[in-house]
């Protein structure tokens, strides 16, 4: 351990407290800070560190993001959101951004970042989704296209009841979600696709572009749906995608 991390830690211990300007530190050094070091800094210094990390485009580990966010949530104004690294946003406490303006400002940023660094059922992710729905004034399980757009990546977590009640607005978004749907979402999506409603219409009228558009939803199809799609359409389409690994690329 000493051989692997000791050197950096010793260097940081010496450097962090005495550095007037974190921006002057090399990216490698910024990359190796520990939560203990962040805990030892004042709130203002944590903010400066976060800004420096953002400016240097340093990719932090989850635990580093979590402890930076923890400290930043103490005193963060909506106007600071642009200055801190976007990766920190999913870890911030949305309760720090109450009120229509503050929550909209927070949501507009957090909806665009990769929230998948947080486990799906993690309290942090659920907290973000609930705060986002409340910020949009969503009651019940109906969301509009505008809501889905505003929720952004958070919309991937909307449960099956939302999929069933808002299929037209939600399915195209779920199709592009990077994580597989959970069982609840999967069943609701399958029912909606089988039902033939908008936006995809009945499977018997699907074309290659419908199949392209389905993306991640393809995996939820069952045999009755598959056999409803014109076979010639599916066969040609399958031949094409199986030869090109690009569909895996989009999944990743």
């Amino acid at each position: 351990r000493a051989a692997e991390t000791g050197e950096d830690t010793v260097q940081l211990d010496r450097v962090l407290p005495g550095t007037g300007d974190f921006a002057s530190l090399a990216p490698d050094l910024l990359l190796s800070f520990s939560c203990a070091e962040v805990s030892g800094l004042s709130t203002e210094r944590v903010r400066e560190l976060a800004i420096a990390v953002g400016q240097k485009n340093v990719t932090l580990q989850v635990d580093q993001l979590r402890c930076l966010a923890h400290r930043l949530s103490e005193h963060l104004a909506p106007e600071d959101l642009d200055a801190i690294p976007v990766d920190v946003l999913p870890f911030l406490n949305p309760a720090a951004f109450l009120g229509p303006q503050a929550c909209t400002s927070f949501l507009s940023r957090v909806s665009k970042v990769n929230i998948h660094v947080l486990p799906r059922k993690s309290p942090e992710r659920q907290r973000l989704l609930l705060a986002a729905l409340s910020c949009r004034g969503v009651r019940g399980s109906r969301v509009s296209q505008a809501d889905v757009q505003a929720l952004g990546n958070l919309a991937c977590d909307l449960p099956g009841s939302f999929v069933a009640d808002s299929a037209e607005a939600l399915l195209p978004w779920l199709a592009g979600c990077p994580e597989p749907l959970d069982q609840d979402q999967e069943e609701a999506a399958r029912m909606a696709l089988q039902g033939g409603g908008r936006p995809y219409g009945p499977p018997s009228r699907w074309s290659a572009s419908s199949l392209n558009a389905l993306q991640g939803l393809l995996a939820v199809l069952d045999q009755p749906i598959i056999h409803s799609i014109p076979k010639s359409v599916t066969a040609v389409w399958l031949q094409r995608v199986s030869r090109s690994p690009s569909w895996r690329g989009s999944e990743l």
Partner: protein
Amino acid sequence: GTEKRACPPERKPQVVDEKLFFYEEWELKACVDGALLAAQIDRVNRVPFTYQQLSIFKHKLDEFYPQGYPESLIQRLSYFFRYLTLEDIQKWNVTSLETVKNLLKVAERKQMDAQAAALVARYLLGKGQLDKDTLDTLANIRPTYLCILSPEQLDSVPPRVLWTVEPQDLDSCSQRQLDILYPYARLAFQNISGLEYFGKIKAFLGGAPKEDLQAFSGQNVSMDMATFKKLPLETLVQLTVDEVQKLLGPHVVGLQAEENNSPVRDWIFRQPQEDLDRLGLGLHGGTPNGYLVLDLNFREAFS
């Protein structure tokens, strides 16, 4: 409907390709065999099969390898790894770090922390060593794998991993592992104090010595009952009623609900009843005033 149907000879596939996408469920079950899938797993990964179809394929592979997949297949699993369960992985022998790294990449950000941890565990069981890159990858997943590491391997875990540990991550750790992790965590959190420190060290208290718990009892930490129940039994029973009361703060009332369960029951047996009475919780089973407790372990010596 439950009758097993035979595969029509003309439907028996020689290769895995997109034609299988159109097979009925029963045809996939009757016609596709595990050997073909194992040999052509790369082709399985190329066709966008549905979850239902993939589930049949997995079942076929499981049937073909009831003792677990061989390493030659594990190395080529790639995306198919996502459909495997903890139980599947626990049957594996993995000796190649390259394989571990490739599969961890597939698992990354796919809510597969438990599978990733199990994979690493299987690799370590074979005495495999983890390099820094792999440990860094592991630092991004829930550290549920800590309890399967040996004392030497625990020592190789970067200290920052300890910052992400949640109490339930250590549920399957042995006392020996907890005893190792506790001082390691103390060191990792040495620069924080007060409630922040307690919040972090809480997950590791299953390895805490009596002196540290006594120190917490004077710090208004309000330990919750779940944490209290995970304290090492031998240490817990040595704490006095006064110390436990201070340690639990408002959670002390939780002792009532746990009165008949270990470890609270064991603790009650070791306390003077008059001290327990002072708590006003109606706890029974302490040592009555004027009585001694004989350690029955010495019964044979007496006789």
